[in-house]
Structure formats: structure tokens, C-alpha cells
């Protein structure tokens, strides 16, 4: 599998390390109940299909990326800098 880094272009997947689900949003620790925190920390969906996930380009530009990958075929349909995704999400929340 090769990943087209937003900054560096297409690279061998050995240059990256995988973190996990990029769609999770941490609940407000002061407000959320124990069940919601438990869900956030431990429970993951094991999708067969398109998955948005976090990858770190450690051997390259050292940037975090949000990769949209089909878990059945490893086809990657989108790669975005995680910083941009986080900023968009924050702006979306504020709006």
C-alpha cells in the first residue's frame, strides 16, 4: 500500500504509522457520563468499507494526515492534513 501524503506525494506505507479512527470526537470530560467516555476510549467500529483514519508521516514531513481508505480494497480516496480537518471541524462547531 502506498499513501499519497498531502505534502510529500506518494510514499511507501513504511514511512507512516497508523493511529486509528479519525472521526472520533472527545466528549467534554466535565460533562460526559462514564458510558460516553468508555465508548470514546475503548469502543471502535470494525468497518468493512470506507474508513477515515489518522496516519503519521514519521519518516517524511512528520505531519498527521486524515486518510480515507476502503478497508476491503485498501483503495485510498482522499488524504488531507489533519490540521486542516481539525480546523474545519472547529469552524463547523462554532458556526
Amino acid at each position, binding site marked *: 500500500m502506498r499513501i499519497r501524503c498531502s*505534502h*510529500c*506525494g506518494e*510514499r*511507501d506505507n*513504511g*514511512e507512516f504509522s497508523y493511529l486509528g479512527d479519525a472521526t472520533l470526537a472527545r466528549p467534554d470530560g466535565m460533562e460526559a457520563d462514564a458510558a460516553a467516555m468508555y465508548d470514546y476510549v475503548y469502543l471502535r467500529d470494525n468497518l468493512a468499507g470506507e474508513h477515515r483514519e489518522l496516519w503519521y508521516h514519521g*519518516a*517524511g*514531513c*512528520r*505531519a498527521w494526515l486524515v486518510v480515507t481508505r476502503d478497508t476491503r480494497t485498501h483503495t485510498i480516496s482522499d488524504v488531507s*492534513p489533519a*490540521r486542516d480537518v481539525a480546523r474545519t471541524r472547529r469552524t463547523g462547531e462554532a458556526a
Partner: protein
Amino acid sequence: MSEGMTTSAWRPRSAWAGVARAGRHGRLQGEAGVRLTLGDGMGLATLIAADGQETALRQILTDRFGWSLPEPGGANVVGERGLVWSAPGQWLAIAETRHALDGLAEAVRGLAAVTDQSDARALVRVSGPCARMALSKGLTIDLHPSAFRTGQSAVTSIAHIGAQIWQRNEAPAYDLTVARSFADSFWSWLDHAAAEFGYEVVGTSGH
């Protein structure tokens, strides 16, 4: 302390000292396929732009140093001076000596963080007719002219060793740096990769 006591026994030591030996190595017949020029005494420094200051940084580097800040994957090097892209908002400044970078940190104060890397990296120039073939053995990026040309750079790894590489000209000649502590391991790989072409090690005092 008396004046006589201030004389230090410490001397600058090349990152390649005890690692690279000048002369001809590997295959000895015919012309050497790879030429390795050791980049000793060069000035290297990382520049990391402060949030939102990239435009101002770009302007001051052009005005004060005549440098243009390269786009992602680029290297704007003229002669022995210039800037190589490293990561989003980060570049490597290079110059023929470390003193040539004096004043850089002061010039960009408030716009970017500057960290001297002159002693932190080992730099080697790889050229010669078989340079591309030798490097391709360890790089996972494509060095073919259709994919990587003069003025392009990459941060990647060679034989699991982190490396930054940029192409200087169409000969082709590449400049490549690794962390100084990896110089020995990297050279061990390079020696094996270049041996079949025959390689020549030159220069230990600047370029």
C-alpha cells in the same frame, strides 16, 4: 582563569571522520560510476515559521538574503546557498560555511525559529553517471527524471535511516543529509550500494 588556560584541546571533527576514506573504492576498473563529495564545514540550520508568519518570512528572506522560500517538495539552492523544504512551514537553510548563516536568526526573529544543524547532520554530494542507480537501491521515492528533478527535495529514509535529499542539477548530482549519529551506518549502506559501480570519495574541506 589565566589566559593560557583558555586554549582548548577541542577541535572540529568531520561527521565523516573515521567513516569515509578519500580515494577510489569498490570496482576499480574503468571510470568511477559514483562520485561522493563530503560536505564538511557547511552551514545548516532549520527554519520553522511561526504560525501565520510565512508570508512575512518569505519577504524578509528575499530582501535580506536573496533567497526564495521553496514550495513543498522544492529546493531553491544557488551554488552552495539556499533553502530546502523539509515539512509544512519548515525548511533547511544551507550555506558553504556556518558563518554564512550568521545573522539569520536575528533577521527572522519573531517570524521563525532557527536552529543550527551544522554539527547535527552529515552531508554528502552524490554524483557521477551511476549516482541515480546507486541511490535508487535504498530510496523508496522515484528518482527518475519524470518524477524527481533539479530543484526538488524529499524527506524520506534510506535503509531505514532518515534522510533529506535534494537534486542539484541534471547531471544528476544530489545532496543528501542524515543525522550525524547515523553517518557510520549510512556509509556502510552507501559503500555496499556504490561498490559495483566503483566510487570515488573526494574533498573533506567544504565544496
